[in-house]
């Protein structure tokens, strides 16, 4: 059976695993974006807070995923929970960093004139600073998504959802003809998701960037 036939025969498997993979990564991206933007907004004005939050979220990214999944097994058990939690931790750093970079890149003259117009701190943030920083922030989210898609595959080690299952089952059947197809299908699946997510972010970036700076 060649690879094409394998894909056709396993089409519903591929679809199901793909949806599960996309769901866990999508959920994690959403949560890390919310937390990450909040952390960025809270810390970007003070150098010390900024460095601290970047150092901590950066060290999450340093911990090997295989090790982190195992460490989370104890408190969270098998399944999607440890995977989601680990992915959220991994996703934070690029979002926080780009939020801080974006907010600090806002022209001080613009901020000054907004203050002069009588905008409150909150209005300033929501109506001036975040919209101007948004293209940089969403780029951080995009990077996060691509990295998380790959890491999620390793989540199969703790029975996590997604294409990792194909890869690890393939590994267990090393030497049989189907093994190569399974691993290849897993990798190709992740790649397709990566392209889909990337296109989605490209579109989202265009649609959500405020018109004046597009």
């Amino acid at each position, binding site marked *: 059976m060649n690879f094409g036939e394998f894909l056709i025969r396993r089409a519903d498997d591929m679809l199901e695993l793909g949806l599960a993979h996309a769901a866990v990564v999508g959920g994690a991206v959403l949560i890390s974006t919310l937390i990450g933007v909040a952390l960025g907004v809270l810390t970007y004005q003070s150098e010390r807070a900024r460095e601290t939050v970047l150092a901590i979220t950066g060290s999450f990214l340093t911990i090997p995923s295989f090790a982190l999944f195992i460490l989370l097994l104890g408190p969270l058990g098998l399944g999607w929970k440890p995977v989601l939690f680990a992915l959220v931790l991994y996703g934070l750093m690029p979002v926080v960093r780009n939020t801080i970079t974006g907010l600090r890149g806002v022209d001080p003259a613009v901020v000054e004139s907004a203050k002069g117009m009588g905008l409150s701190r909150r209005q300033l943030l929501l109506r001036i600073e975040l919209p101007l920083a948004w293209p940089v922030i969403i780029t951080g989210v995009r990077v996060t998504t691509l*990295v998380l898609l790959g890491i999620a595959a390793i989540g199969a080690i703790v029975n996590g959802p997604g294409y990792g299952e194909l890869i690890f089952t393939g590994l267990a059947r090393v030497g049989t003809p189907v093994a190569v197809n399974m691993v290849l299908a897993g990798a190709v699946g992740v790649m397709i998701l990566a392209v889909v997510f990337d296109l989605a972010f490209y579109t989202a970036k265009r649609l959500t960037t405020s018109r004046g700076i597009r």
Partner: protein
Amino acid sequence: MSAPATAASTTDAEVVQTQSAPPRRSWPGYLTMPLILGLVCLGMFLYVQSRELDSIEARSLNARTILTALQGHVMLTAVSTLVTLVISVPLGVLLTRSFTRVIRPYIIGVLTVLQAVPTIAILVLLAVAFLFLGFQAAIVGLVLYAIIPVLLNTMVGLEQVDENVMEAGRGMGFSRWQVLTKLEVPLAVPVILAGVRTALVINVGTATLVTYIDAGGLGDIIVAGLSTNRILVQLIGAALTAVLALLVDYIAGIAEDLLRPKGL
């Protein structure tokens, strides 16, 4: 990405991968990480000592097994990082020369998306498709995966060198080669160092997975714990891996601070 990259990152921010090294670190800042890691190791040691290990646990959790795994892991990380740098830094230089200007955004875009290929898939494919196992296969897999982020880093680093500086160099009568070696490369050193750090951190993490292709490393201990259902062994293996990764990142961070050319 460090602060000077801000201007570039608004357009090229998709490639910002490395964490910025804090520009100035106070002494307590330098000491926190080793202190935490030391305490974690001490805690693990005392806990394992206080437990009555069964024969399966004792087979994994003894000094000799752990040291062998650790040594293998460090070797894998060092060799793969070296190979990664030897390939990706010159390639990065090549891809930022003027003849690639038209296709460069596409290269960067493709490389960015390729980062999503799961490492484990690369490693396992080497094993199942080519029956390529062991240390050399692991190095190939690790390098294939780490090349992309380091390459992206180098390219961005070289691109963000101020055009005016290069113009001034040319005005002083520098040849193209001199502009590259005397201006571009020294000015891009911080970014290349950040790339080294990225490569180290990625490789130290990925090296955990090469146990699946019989290449040793600390992953051996975790997988031994998984396959014999010994939670203690899994946890110790995972915690040791995490400690090693954080330590490598910490040392690389210090090296980054020390090696950065003065005046930048």
